[in-house]
């Protein structure tokens, strides 16, 4: 048995040696998602990576590993610190979450800890209220908040995540103070708070809000993006259209990255293949069926976007 194991070990080590020389990838790849199974990021990551095993993609399947906790901090800390930079450990990023968290401090990563590969989706934040709410536009919300400073409660999925950024921007643009209530357990819990009437309104993902509206549970008052979402919500105006100077900084960009120190040839191979993999028709079909907006960006575009977000968020979060 011992001999067998030593023999087996030798074979495996031998194969590992060959693998280093090239031929990447020659074994299944792992994709770390820093949110729980069933969350929007996890769900989309499973869809966009489902064709990874195809010959025209990476030729090896991608397995999703969830490391949830503290709005993504647990997973990204692990990714920055402990993940092997060998190209077999990928991570899913959420912008503006991880950049906002690194500005706020108390984490072991910043923009320079990671190398982006490609972006797959962009999920804008929207402002929602319950179906029986007296509010019918952002103007109603702002008027109420002006009359009752600090009395308007609204939910979102945690602090220093996209929803929180949108909340801060809305408050800043309208010049009002409202009561932001972060929930634990992601967007679903924040949505429940709105539908059940625990809070008066909420910031949530466009995809989840769209479904909730289809189910007849909420009204969507505004989109925190530079333009309307023509695919899912063509008749919901943006914040800017309603006189609130809110740009697309809170839009939740989701994509794939690797840890700093990953060999350049591996990054090159991934950066060339992954955006093509996202463009697969079946992927697009499944994403659209689930109400998840796609937005494919290449490595260079993502690098630029990360840089812009960091500059803007640095200003927004100053003094918080």
């Amino acid at each position, binding site marked *: 048995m011992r001999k067998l194991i030593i023999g087996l070990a030798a074979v495996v080590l031998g194969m590992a040696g060959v693998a280093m020389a090239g031929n990447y990838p020659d074994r299944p790849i792992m994709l770390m998602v820093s949110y729980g199974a069933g969350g929007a990021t996890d769900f989309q990551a499973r869809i966009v990576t489902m064709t990874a095993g195809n010959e025209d993609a990476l030729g090896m399947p991608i397995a999703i590993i969830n490391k949830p906790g503290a709005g993504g901090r*647990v997973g990204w800390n692990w990714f920055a610190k402990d993940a092997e930079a060998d190209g077999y450990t990928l991570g899913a990023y959420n912008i503006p979450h991880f950049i906002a*968290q690194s500005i706020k401090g108390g984490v072991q990563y910043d923009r320079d800890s990671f190398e982006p590969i490609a972006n797959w989706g962009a999920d804008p934040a929207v402002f929602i209220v319950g179906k029986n709410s007296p509010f019918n536009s952002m103007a109603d919300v702002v008027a109420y908040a002006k009359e009752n400073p600090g009395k308007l409660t609204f939910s979102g999925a945690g602090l220093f995540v996209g929803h929180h950024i949108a909340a801060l921007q809305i408050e800043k643009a309208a010049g009002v103070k409202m009561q932001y209530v*972060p929930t634990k357990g992601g967007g679903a819990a924040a949505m429940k708070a709105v539908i059940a009437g625990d809070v008066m309104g909420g910031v949530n993902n466009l995809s989840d809000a769209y479904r909730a509206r289809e189910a007849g549970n909420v009204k969507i008052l505004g989109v925190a993006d530079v333009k309307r979402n023509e695919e899912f919500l063509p008749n919901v105006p943006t914040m800017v259209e309603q006189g609130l100077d809110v740009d697309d900084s809170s839009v939740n960009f989701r994509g794939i990255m690797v840890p700093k120190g990953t060999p350049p040839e591996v990054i090159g191979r991934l950066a060339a293949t992954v955006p093509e993999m996202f463009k697969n028709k079946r992927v697009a079909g499944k994403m659209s069926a689930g109400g998840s907006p796609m937005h494919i960006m290449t490595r260079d575009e993502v690098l630029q976007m990360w840089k812009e977000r960091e500059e803007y968020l640095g200003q927004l979060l100053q003094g918080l």
Partner: protein
Amino acid sequence: MEFLSYFGEVFTPISMLLLIGGTVGGLILGATPGLSPTMAVALLIPFTFHLQPVHGLILLGAAYTSTVAGGAVSAILLKIPGAPANIATTLDGHAMAVRGQGARALQLAFLSSLVGGVFGVLLLIFLTPLLAQWALAFGPSHLFWLAILGVTVIGSLDSDSVVKGLLSGSIGMWLATIGYDDMQGVQRFIFHDALGGGVNIIAALIGLFAIPQVLTMFAKGWQDYGVESIEVQRHPLSAAVHEVFSRTRALTIGTLSGSIIGLIPGVGGQIAGLVAYDQAKKFSPEKDKFGTGHSEGVIAAESANNAMVGPSLVPLLTLSIPGSPTAAVLLGGLLIHGIFPGTDLFDNHPEVAWPFINSMLIGQILMCAFGIYIASFAARIAQVPQSIMAAAVLGLAVFGSYSVQQSMGDVYVMMALGTMMYFLERFGYSAAPLVLGLILGPIAESNFIQGSLIATAGNGQFQYFFSGALNLLLIAVVVVSIGYSAMMEIRNRRVAA
């Protein structure tokens, strides 16, 4: 009765094949330490990409029901609860298995799972709109009081001393605060890198239950190898059926409390089994037998955790809000086929929704049949020599805790907590209250903070937490529960004196 007309879809060859595959696969995945029902269902999602919507959902529905019951297998045979839902099953189930009555324990577990599970799914079929309102009624203040109610249950749960039980519970609540604070993102009590991600509940479960058992076997030493002398009793199925239905009290308490608690979003699934166990114990004339391999314990715990399956899907199917992590994964399974759950789900997609629910009914029966089939073999585990058993459980604990999220930190935490628990148990502390504290701590904390934020914007803390019928009802139950525990403590002292 509309659902009856959709049974045809479940009985087509491909559906039956998926149903059987999902059930058997789910049982095996559920019985694997470290693999919670959530992860098991998530693992199956990629398979559904290639199936028609209705077939994909039949597979997921069958897997969901059977993974919850599968957790009972490792809970009973190895004393490793597969998920928080199975904690209560270990208390009496494993005690039976050690005595060679593993077959009896498994039969009871699967039969009561069947009863609870079918009841839960029937609730889902007939009372969904009503139940949805009930699920929504629980806001932050109510969930806070519910968590406090759970804390008061801690004292009487599997511990001979109320004070030590509560102390174990407070240790658990403290352990839960380790790591990042979920709301603010501030680090708390991180003394070692392994604790950076906090104490993972599944890894903690494995450590707290499996490791003390391994160390107990070590401590018996090498002289004590009388295990072969344990007679593995064959247990006729008819006897098990008779036993389950003669324990009406435990079965009713388990089924009802499981269904009611299962509805509450974010809380239900984890504590249904423990709460039912505790209630069954309080109402039983044979309180002292609980924890020693008493059938009522297994029946209450297992009927509760499967009764929770149906109602836990109510918020998902009617409001599109996943009430549990597993429901969230199932939502993904619906979405990839473009099916949006909501009040009109049964009008727009009856051809998918009803077969999905029906498959959970049929799945329960298949699960029970298969579970009982393996029970008689599985029970032989009691005859495995302790030296092999100890080493095997240790290995499973290591692999299981690692595979939760592929983190070595979890393995270290698992071993450290387990070793600590072994010594604490020697001095009268117990694992079940500690785990309950670990589960309830974060629920109490996050709902307290959310409630305070809402209250500050509204009419103030007192008004928010102490008014409203549901708040007052929960507070009343808390008071009764504390009173009961105090009474028990006094009585215990009299008996001791």
